[in-house]
């Protein structure tokens, strides 16, 4: 496997020096060894050793991928993907109209964006989803946990208590109607306390905290492997006010979007973002459009909740 030196994830200054010294492939670097490398380029032995470790890791992961190592390999045929998608569950919203538009509910491994005017119910829907993701499998849920990243401070715990209580009651009614053993067993663990304890809440006050939280999320998710939903309530808020450099904003949002897709894909979680609406003033009329629309390529349909979505809450 002859990897080009320019395509290895090394520091740019180091890469430039390697290319200037005449190294072309990763194999040449590995052959030279750390002492030779530090002499050729004029870097310390520790730096050369670190660089060679990175190169070795890259080449090693190349080799394992071509050997067909399962698990972290992201290569598959469309048929295998279809089977995976068909076996995947959805997070239901308890609003059948909404579930119908979404094709069954909020999809795992995809990013869903919810946008709407202030007060229309975006945070309510997110809280509902954070409870719904925890419904046990025998009731048709995913038995997962939820991460809630709040940037606007609109998360009300008493409201979540209401939603959770209603959801537990709903499941109890189903269990009474069907009288099956696994239903009753699942209900023992599905209580208000367990629901609340499985919603991991993070409060981010500005865009730097938000970015840091998202970049640290993969480590958190590897420890808590049952998380199936990541909600970022208010992705527009930290980026809209007080941001002078617009190109930096676009770059940060794009990087954030890529990081979220990696999280959604690797951990089989659904990522839900809420967005604000802004007015685009046209020539003859003005229209309401989602803010930050062009910057964050949302993967699923944005639902412009116009306030006429019935039965949004379970209780």
């Amino acid at each position: 496997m002859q990897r080009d030196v320019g395509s290895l994830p090394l520091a740019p200054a180091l890469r430039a020096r390697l290319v200037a010294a005449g190294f072309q492939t990763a194999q040449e670097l590995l052959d030279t060894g750390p002492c030779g490398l530090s002499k050729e380029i004029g870097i310390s032995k520790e730096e050369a050793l670190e660089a060679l470790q990175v190169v070795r890791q890259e080449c090693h992961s190349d080799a394992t991928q071509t050997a067909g190592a399962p698990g972290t390999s992201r290569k598959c045929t469309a048929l295998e993907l279809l089977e995976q998608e068909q076996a995947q569950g959805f997070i239901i919203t308890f609003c059948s109209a909404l579930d119908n538009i979404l094709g069954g509910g909020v999809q795992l491994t995809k990013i869903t964006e919810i946008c709407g005017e202030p007060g229309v119910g975006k945070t309510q829907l997110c809280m509902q989803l954070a409870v719904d993701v925890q419904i046990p499998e025998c009731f048709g849920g995913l038995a997962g946990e939820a991460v809630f990243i709040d940037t606007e401070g609109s998360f009300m715990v008493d409201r979540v208590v209401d939603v959770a209580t209603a959801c537990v009651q709903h499941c109890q009614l189903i269990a009474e109607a069907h009288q099956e053993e696994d239903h009753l067993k699942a209900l023992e663990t599905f209580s208000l306390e367990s629901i609340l304890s499985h919603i991991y809440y993070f409060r981010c006050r500005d865009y730097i905290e938000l970015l840091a939280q998202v970049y640290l999320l993969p480590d958190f998710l590897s420890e808590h492997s049952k998380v199936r939903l990541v909600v970022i309530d208010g992705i527009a808020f930290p980026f809209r006010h007080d941001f002078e450099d617009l190109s930096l904003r676009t770059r940060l949002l794009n990087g954030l979007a890529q990081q979220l897709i990696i999280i959604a894909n690797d951990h089989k979680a659904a990522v839900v973002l809420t967005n604000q609406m802004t007015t685009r003033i046209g020539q003859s009329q003005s229209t309401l459009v989602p803010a930050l629309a062009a910057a964050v390529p949302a993967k699923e349909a944005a639902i412009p909740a116009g306030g006429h979505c019935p039965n949004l809450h379970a209780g």
Partner: protein
Amino acid sequence: MALLRAALCPGLTAQMVPLLRASGVRTVVDFVSSDLEDVAQKCSLSYKALVAVRRVLLAQFSAFPANGADLYEELKSSTAILSTGIPSLDKLLDSGLYTGEVTELMGAPGSGKTQVCLSIAASMSLGLKQHVLFLDSTGGFTASRLYQMLQAQAEDEEEQLEALQRVQVTRVFDVYEMLRALQELRDSLSQQVLSSTGPLKVVLIDSVSAVIYPLLGGKQSEGLALMMQLARELKMLAREFSLAVVVTNQVTRDSSAGPLKPALGRSWSFVPSTRVLLQSKEATSEKTNTRRIASLAKSPRQPTGIQVVLDVGSGGAQELSPATPTQGL
């Protein structure tokens, strides 16, 4: 600029390399451009041996000029024109995707780029029975949507499943992963590993801007270098292995009322030979808008500005038939 190594060419022995290095001759370019008599004296090596080595190095490393007529013959025999399966898009592209070239689809989010890519993958895999490689960097590849398109085009379930197996999907969310995937492809094609790959003719990359955008701009200098690395990989793949490479790109505006222009800047604009802009038609009274306008923004063969209307509805991207005005989901 390759380093001089012991086994680089037959005449270059392990003893010669450190001697040459001591007198300042480190790379092939240094060797070939230096005065050999001087070097022979300084390193106390035989002049004849050095001349022989130079001849071999020149043969190995220099590029040879080709005759225009030979090039044309070679092009005629190796280039294929692959129909995309969408007649109106074929008209735009001068009868289809040309192998050996990079074609770009650009548009705003929701303009139908991924749908057109899926449609191309479906028709190539089903109609032309070609293997397709889909590099997905946005998470937008939905196998059930591809299956839906295949179901609309073929009745037989066996055929549909076979077609699905011919589409190879690799998820790359990072520019280094994308470079790695492309180099893996290059290695497997040059070693002619047939096994699961089969006759690969089309590589679809959705999207290139998603992995490059976070690196461009500001004080970062490596973004441009990585972008050009990627460009070089794509062009090399297309040219050496006669593949048709399709990439998708975003669009930006200079100001809020300015015209749409492709993202990734001027340096990237030299990479694709053909550029197609996808736009949604202005919202009409119907709720479900599946119509898209594709216009030619750059082409080596056709005049730019040609527009066609596509429908990205349930059967995959199709041209709009004049009889049925709407074809909702």
